């Protein structure tokens, strides 16, 4: 029983970083209509920046905020210099983003090196409750993710900005006629999604080492989460992340461990076949824009 509860606790923290990257993708892909395959590299850059700052003696939580801002600025530059020219041709943006991901990987290798980077656990505590080991930093990652999810959810569903954004997704031309600065909103979404990737990278390196190639692995899970939940749907990304986290955790614990990745992708395929719009429904992605 202890082992089973431990697996559930593990699954929750696994899901957290995936949820963060999933939210970034679901906003950028589902609401701004941009397929950014370099989003995983944005996360990696956030993690590398955190590693650098913590290595220079900065407090982890300060570094986390700065990493988010840095990657947000990177997102701003990428949107203004690259993706805004592909808004009407999402496929061009997609191909461009693959190129950008390779460039970012090798820029990081050039600036630092190719080896994995890690930081010491910023908290360094393990709580044992009823035979279950809860790593304190993992609990903090879950809490930070929950706060970000709440802010994002209410921002999208309740604020004027969120309403205008959703109106832009529903009918861009009409939204523009109503005076909504759609282009600026797209930029804003891109920056926010990138900022989340930066924070996700910082949280990730607090749990696991990262390499310049971490992003290309995690991006697949990010897209899976956003598609399972429903594109553009923040709640969907949370549900998608939890589903994948639970499937990962329990299949690794009780299934054939070497098939762990396959189990979660089979679940994704099944969900997309049975509910093409995702579990909670969402936009239809770039085509709708």
């Amino acid at each position, binding site marked *: 029983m202890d082992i089973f509860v431990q697996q559930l606790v593990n699954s929750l923290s696994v899901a957290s970083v995936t949820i963060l990257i999933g939210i970034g993708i679901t906003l950028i892909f589902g609401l701004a209509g941009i397929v950014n395959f370099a989003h995983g590299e944005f996360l990696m850059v956030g993690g590398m920046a955190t590693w650098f700052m913590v290595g220079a003696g900065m407090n982890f939580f300060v570094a986390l905020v700065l990493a988010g801002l840095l990657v947000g600025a990177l997102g701003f530059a990428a949107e203004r210099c690259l993706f805004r020219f592909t808004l009407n041709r999402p496929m061009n943006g997609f191909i461009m983003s693959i190129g950008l991901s390779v460039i970012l990987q090798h820029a990081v290798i050039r600036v630092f090196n190719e080896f994995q980077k890690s930081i010491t656990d910023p908290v360094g505590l393990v709580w044992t409750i009823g035979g279950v080991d809860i790593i304190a930093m993992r609990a903090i990652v879950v809490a930070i993710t929950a706060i970000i999810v709440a802010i994002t959810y209410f921002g999208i569903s309740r604020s004027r900005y969120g309403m205008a954004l959703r109106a832009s997704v529903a009918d861009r031309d009409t939204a523009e006629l109503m005076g909504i600065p759609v282009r600026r909103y797209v930029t804003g979404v891109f920056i926010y999604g990138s900022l989340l990737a930066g924070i996700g990278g910082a949280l990730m390196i607090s749990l696991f080492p990262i390499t310049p190639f971490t992003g290309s692995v995690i991006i697949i899970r990010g897209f899976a989460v956003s598609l399972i939940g429903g594109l553009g749907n923040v709640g969907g990304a949370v549900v998608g992340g939890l589903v994948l986290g639970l499937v990962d955790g329990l299949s690794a614990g*009780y299934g054939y461990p070497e098939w762990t990745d396959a189990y979660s992708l089979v679940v994704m395929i099944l969900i997309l076949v049975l509910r093409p719009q995702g579990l909670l429904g969402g936009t239809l992605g770039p085509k709708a824009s």
Partner: protein
Amino acid sequence: MRQLGLGLTIAAAGLAMALQTARADEELPIGVIAAQSGSFVSAGNTIVGAANLAAQQINDAGGIKVGDKTYKIKLYIRDNRTDVNVTIAAARELVNDIGVKAIWGTETHDFSVSMAKITGPAKVLQFSGNSSLGAVLDNKAVAEDGWLHYTFQSEPQEWQRSGSTGKGVLSLLTPQLKSPPKHSVVFVGNDATGQYLSSHYVKALEAEGQKVDLVQYPPDTTDFSPLLTRIKGMKPDIVHFWYNGDSTLTAFPQALKLGVAPSYFLFGVDPGIYQERSLKADVPVTLSCVPVCWGSSPYPEVKQYFDKYFGLGAAKGPQSSVSLLYYDYFFWYAKALEKVGKIDDPDAVVAELLKSDYKGVVSPVPLVFNKHHQVTFATEVCMVEPNTSDQFKCAVEQPPAAPPPGDNGG
């Protein structure tokens, strides 16, 4: 005046060409194929680093005297981008267009085998540091008309490495545990190399009386906690993190936090990295490197080598020591060329390599190729004192004389 100028220009160009030809005659073109980009870059860069250092040292020492000529090594380094197709294209270019006499590389079994299908027919020597080549280097393959006649495995056979590693780990850990360890879990990435290497290591541990469970994880796993929790439920005496140093460095701290086992073995993690990462465990931990640790070597030659290697700007990483699978063979090859007296007789060079030995950096005992073109050398295993990051006790364990029961040696 204009004609005189033209004449001088032509003469100068002719002289330059002649000098160029003369200089080309004294160059020994050697190819290096390694990942300088893509996911194998951390291993690939070590091959390039070793090649640059060896070529620089040989050239600075005056070059290679072959017959009445002196050759300087000219390296042709190609990035395989961690892609087998790029590897094949690079091998074709080096062999067919540039005409290299030998190629060093590459990181993985599959890539090296693909290269051998190009180097073999062209009679170009190939030095590859993949123990998994043992699966294909047999009597027929290395015969004079065999497709691997010109290929040499610069890493010991896997049953040898596994045998000496397993013995070293158990001999260091047993006195540290309350009772002799009986149950080991081998934790390994589920890719071709992981499957091959672990198949030998499991048998080596079984030969030492261990009950062994094998748990494989998908490559690129970052969160090992579910799998480690599963292993914790198996109640092992030792968890052996096998094969991939990067994955081990990710998984091991998670295992410590979850209290998975009373002792650990980390394969491919150098004591230097353990120290650099400030890793600490309250239980005994053993480490081994491929092939010799840069962070805690018992041999002064190895320390000098790594001082020079890192002095050239190579990064310190879990796989830096892999460079030693390539370095010595430049000198051995040069020695063979000098003995043969010709650079264009690869069959004679192969024969010379097979009958000669070479005392290099990687082993205090001279290296010798066996009839399957494989070397043998000992494995170094270190133990870190509990609750420290920099207190190591290392032992060098000789390989067993024969494969363990159930291991066909291939």
